[in-house]
């Protein structure tokens, strides 16, 4: 695996971690009783993501790494539907499809 491929793989993992962390923050705004717990868990996941992203940035241009992070929308959409019961209609799913195609194009230029 080349450094660039490794970097792209790391950004994919970052997107999943980001999606879960965002759901934790939204949970904090929904549950007053466990507010700080959810913020704490969210921050913990953001720290893990930050470390992985720092490693990825050693091998990737920021104009590749950062747009690729848009895959976190896929993770946010999936996790917020699954864990928060937020709605995910056809239009939103089509948008997520465009994001995946766009990310593939950006990744090919890494």
């Amino acid at each position, binding site marked *: 695996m080349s450094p660039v491929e490794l970097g792209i793989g790391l950004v994919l993992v970052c997107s999943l971690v980001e999606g879960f962390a965002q759901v934790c923050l939204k949970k904090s705004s929904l549950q007053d009783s466990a507010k700080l717990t959810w913020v704490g868990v969210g921050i913990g996941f953001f720290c893990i993501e930050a470390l992985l992203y*720092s490693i990825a940035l*050693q091998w990737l241009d920021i104009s590749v790494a950062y747009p690729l992070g848009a895959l976190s929308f896929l993770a946010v959409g999936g996790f917020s539907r699954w864990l928060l019961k937020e709605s995910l*209609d056809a239009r939103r799913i089509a948008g997520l499809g465009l994001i*995946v195609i*766009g990310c593939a194009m950006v990744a090919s230029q890494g």
Partner: protein
Amino acid sequence: MSSKNPLHGLTPVLTLFLAIAIVLDTLAQLLWKHAVAGLPDDASLSVTLLAVFSQPWFVVVIALFLIQLWNWLEVLKHADLSFAQPITSISYLTVSLASWWLFGEKLGPLKGAGILLILAGVWLSSGGARNTPAESERCP
């Protein structure tokens, strides 16, 4: 929550917090890349970890993210996560343009088109309800 506003309830307060989020995103990403670029090419996990806690630029990045976290919690008070997050995607454009301008990164036609497609996808997916009522009323 009713949505009389054509902009799906983008209130002035929410708009302000979202604008702050985009500026902070852009600054943080550029400084982050700048900080990592200062590390040795073959920096190991431990070197990277150490640098995160010792180098001044990383400290600035962490400070920006703490401000961003506070700002983001304000955003989430006013909007669904799946509505608010897409709007901050404008920073994909600002970060990429700034990296081309400041760092001389290549922005070829395929990368440019990919970024625009990502933006289109993000905006398409942001047209839903601003605040899901059932979820807002489900607080324990």
